[in-house]
């Protein structure tokens, strides 16, 4: 870093240094964030294509486009790719990498080399996953439950590649979390006290804690699974005297917090969006900040609610059911405070805000339907049905992915220096929102009527709702492709964006667009909170959508 001269450090980061090596070996968090973004979006596309294939197969009763075993592989790949290659790294590693140091007023993350390492570790993990697909792919579901993942002797190499891939991806996630955690503690600009931290940072902080504490347990679980597979250890495999429920405990000890590793960043993003597009301080700022930590904490003590029908003791079932209801408290705090932020706010419906509002709507449905599943007696009926599928898609996609796209549209001008077409983005947002609800509302109904998840075929009476869901998926896809098209178009033809397109008072909008190599020419000194619109001068609130010298 110190090899760069003053002039380079204060040049637009996209053009400060040139050549492929300046990207491949960059230590700049902004470039690493962009590289992550490219691969994360590629994973989203791949996972999305698998989803469309799954939905197309389910359009009609009986075999439609693929065979049963292929179908099993398709939904496994959809789940594994979406969770491990897309959603978990999506917001932290791409948007977070880019924005977090700037919001801290820092020049970079705490450990830039680890940051680059985490990117390459991610690529290694992705490669191992691809190798597994090349060998014919796995059909275990994304959870790798034993004994499914141990049974088929012919699937050995594929399962090993996939498990090792996820194992390696875990390290990438740990490195990102570690980097953010330390950066937030040690690299805050002068005056940036804990109570002046943007809520995006608070969300990243809670996420990092979970990444750092939960992911190692996944790593060791997968390692034991590999040993079980290779040596026949007898810990998880019931045939050898092992305990398959133990695997489920281990798996969900990571994977429940992982759900919050996914959703808390989405919440973190929309907190920024609500403030900026309502021109108001976030109502109950401190409560919202603490609720992120609350989710991180509660996230570690509810894992077994995924196992109510697995054969745990009645006492354990009751305990985990009761604990699970605690989740509603921090979630409720957030939803109520966001809503209160909107009240008497000066709301604008710019494209990112449409996603924030969609998040509020969809996450609320996702959260409330979680109560049905956390309650023992209803869960016995709904477990492993489409109700569960719909529930977690409302949280994972309606929450995290919608938050991710909202954040992407929000920070896009800062990241790329280009402004996109509002009309196109608005159409994309509406198609996504409508398509999403059509796809998954119908799945709530299917599930409550007893349609089991992961099945290749179904009874004829379920066909009409499956059709509705599949057509919803197509609308959803058209919305996402529209948004992608709008963004790609902006790169090629978009007008140069201004310094502060949304008239936000947050720190990241005070630096150039795109930011200079070292983020700020001079280290900023923070004197007020991130949402203090009531203290802002008129000049600060001007929306300079386009750069003043941008010729048409």
């Amino acid at each position, binding site marked *: 870093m110190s090899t760069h001269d003053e002039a380079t450090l204060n040049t637009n980061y996209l053009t400060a240094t040139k050549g492929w090596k300046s990207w491949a070996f960059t230590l700049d968090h902004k470039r690493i964030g962009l590289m992550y973004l490219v691969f994360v979006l590629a994973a989203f596309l791949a996972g999305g294509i698998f989803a469309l294939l799954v939905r197309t197969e389910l359009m009609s009763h009986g075999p439609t486009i693929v065979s049963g075993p292929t179908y099993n592989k398709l939904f496994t790949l959809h789940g594994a790719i979406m969770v491990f290659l897309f959603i978990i790294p999506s917001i932290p590693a791409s948007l977070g990498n880019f924005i977090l140091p700037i919001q801290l007023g820092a020049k970079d993350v705490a*450990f830039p080399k680890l940051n680059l390492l985490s990117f390459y570790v991610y690529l290694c993990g992705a490669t191992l996953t691809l190798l597994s697909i090349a060998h014919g792919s796995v059909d275990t579901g994304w959870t790798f439950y034993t004994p499914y993942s141990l049974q088929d002797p012919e699937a050995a190499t594929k399962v090993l590649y996939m498990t090792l891939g996820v194992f390696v991806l875990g390290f990438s996630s740990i490195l990102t979390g570690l980097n953010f955690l330390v950066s937030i503690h040690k690299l805050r600009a002068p005056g940036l006290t804990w109570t002046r931290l943007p809520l995006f940072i608070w969300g990243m902080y809670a996420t990092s804690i979970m990444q750092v504490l939960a992911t190692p347990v996944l790593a060791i679980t997968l390692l034991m699974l590999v040993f079980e597979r290779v040596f026949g250890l007898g810990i998880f495999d019931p045939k050898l*005297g092992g305990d398959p429920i133990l695997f489920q405990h281990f798996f969900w000890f990571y994977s429940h917090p992982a759900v919050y590793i996914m959703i808390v960043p989405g919440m973190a993003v929309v907190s920024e969006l609500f403030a900026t597009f309502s021109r108001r301080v976030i109502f109950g700022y401190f409560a919202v900040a603490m609720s992120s930590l609350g989710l991180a904490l509660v996230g570690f003590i509810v894992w077994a609610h995924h196992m109510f029908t697995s054969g745990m003791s009645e006492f354990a079932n009751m305990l985990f059911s009761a604990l699970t209801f605690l989740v509603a408290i921090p979630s409720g705090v957030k939803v109520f405070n966001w809503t209160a932020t909107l009240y008497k706010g000066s709301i604008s419906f710019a494209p990112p805000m449409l996603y924030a509002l969609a998040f509020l709507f969809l996450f609320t449905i996702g959260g409330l339907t979680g109560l049905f599943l956390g309650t023992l007696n209803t869960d016995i009926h709904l477990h492993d049905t489409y109700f569960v599928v719909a529930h977690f898609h409302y949280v994972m996609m309606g929450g995290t992915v919608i938050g991710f796209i909202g954040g992407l549209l929000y920070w896009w001008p800062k990241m790329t220096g280009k402004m996109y077409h509002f009309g196109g983005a608005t159409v994309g947002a509406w198609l996504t929102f409508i398509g999403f609800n059509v796809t998954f509302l119908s799945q709530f109904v299917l599930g409550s009527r007893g349609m089991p998840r992961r099945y290749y075929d179904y009874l004829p009476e379920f066909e009409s709702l499956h059709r509705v869901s599949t057509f919803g998926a197509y609308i959803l896809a058209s919305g996402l492709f529209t948004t992608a098209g709008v963004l790609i178009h902006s790169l090629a033809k978009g007008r140069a964006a201004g310094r502060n397109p949304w008239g936000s008072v947050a720190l990241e909008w005070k630096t150039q667009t795109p930011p200079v190599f070292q983020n700020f020419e001079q280290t900023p000194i923070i004197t007020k909170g991130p949402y203090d619109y009531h203290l802002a001068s008129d000049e600060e609130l001007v929306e300079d959508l386009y750069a003043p010298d941008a010729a048409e």
Partner: protein
Amino acid sequence: MSSPSDATAHDAHPHEHPSYVQHHFDTAAQQYDTAKLGMWVFIATEILMFGGLFVAYALMKAREPDVFIAGHHYLNKEMGALNTVVLLFSSLTAALAVRSSQLGKRNETSAWLVTTILCACVFLVVKYFEYSHKIEEGLLPGRYFGHPFFDMSAAPAFHEALPSRANMFFGLYFIMTGLHGLHVLIGMGILSWVLLRNIRGEFSAEYFTAVDLGALYWHLVDLVWIYLFPLLYLIG
């Protein structure tokens, strides 16, 4: 080590600080604190990772105590105890390396680092003898249990005193000590790199972060073994 002047926010000349302070830090103290916190967080992840194994161990031990008792008689307590002493001593020498580095005594630091690395070698040599004995005896994990040298073609040679589930005990033994042994190797690599940098004269009484963190990591390696030794060797 940090004068108030170089901590000012509007320092327009970020290159005025010492060469070992990276560009994105304001002061040497900030850089040191950051690195140290990073290492502590990393150690937390390591403990969580080993924690998973310890949980698996505890559950299996609670359910099948006889298997563990029977199995542990086949572990060599003397060698385990020797290794415990070696690792404890190496933790001391690692701490002494940090101390002498803080005092700016370069040669002394090198000597303590070399001692620590040698202790690690002794540990691995002892481990090698333990492992090769187990492999000869067929005290191996899972389906290889009773098959000396992992040779599945030969007729199985079981120890009569051992229940068949001892294969799970030896599986746990190999995973736990194997993962720990891997950490010893990594620790040796880190300490060697620190030694190399020390010989090159990169450290001083003002800047000794890598020595400090290397030693911190080494203490973790020691700590894990302190739990592994009684849990595996001394449960009878």
